[in-house]
């Protein structure tokens, strides 16, 4: 069963760039296991901001972008805005073991 590892927290000033990593513990072969990213504002339900590793749903600001290199997915926010302060979770699919979420990363805007 795969696990996804994220940093506990990252911080940046408004206008700067922050990047959150999400590393898969094992490579998943034989099935498609794309990474998606979710933003969770305090007291709210999660909101999809990236799917298929790099795709952005309509309505999500272009300052959010996703990338993939090997077994590590990354979410970059640039330029960072105060309203981006939230928890961010990555997710992927492990086949018959189902869906897995990372531990979440708290983004703090200084």
């Amino acid at each position, binding site marked *: *069963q795969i696990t996804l590892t994220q940093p506990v927290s990252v911080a940046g000033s408004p206008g700067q760039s922050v990047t959150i990593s999400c590393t898969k513990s094992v490579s998943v072969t034989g*099935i*498609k*296991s*794309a990474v*998606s990213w*979710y933003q969770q504002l305090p007291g709210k*339900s*999660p*909101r*999809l901001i990236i*799917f*298929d590793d790099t795709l952005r*749903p309509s309505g999500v600001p272009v300052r959010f972008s996703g990338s993939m290199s090997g077994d590590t997915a990354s979410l970059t926010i640039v330029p960072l805005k105060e309203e981006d302060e939230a928890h961010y*979770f990555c*997710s992927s*699919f492990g*086949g*018959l*073991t*189902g*869906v*897995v*979420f*990372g*531990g*979440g990363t708290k983004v703090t805007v200084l």
Partner: protein
Amino acid sequence: QITLKETAPTFVKPPQPLTLTCTFSGFNFAERGVGVGWIRQAPGKSLEWLALIYWNNVKLYSRSLETRLTITKDTSRNRIVLTLITVGPEDSATYFCARADIDYPVISFNHFDPWGPGIHVSVSS
């Protein structure tokens, strides 16, 4: 517009079962590539995936909870029901349901979008 809403008792006594209902609108669950999943979040914790049901009735469960979970669909009433048996205090959490996008024909989960507002359930004797 796609919406989902979770309903459940807000308090449950152990070891009673917990039944959660997800009522959705704005999409056709019989459509290929559609699914609904359940996810929970204990206070201050990460998201924990529980179960997933596909349009073709394929069901997937969290390995750690699969002996306690049952997911069913009532397509005629646009509802997905999740039952968790033998609850304990560790099952206290906010429970979310979400529409799942399933890649077809590879039948791989892709992402959850959108999510319901969630419902908080407390388990205590």
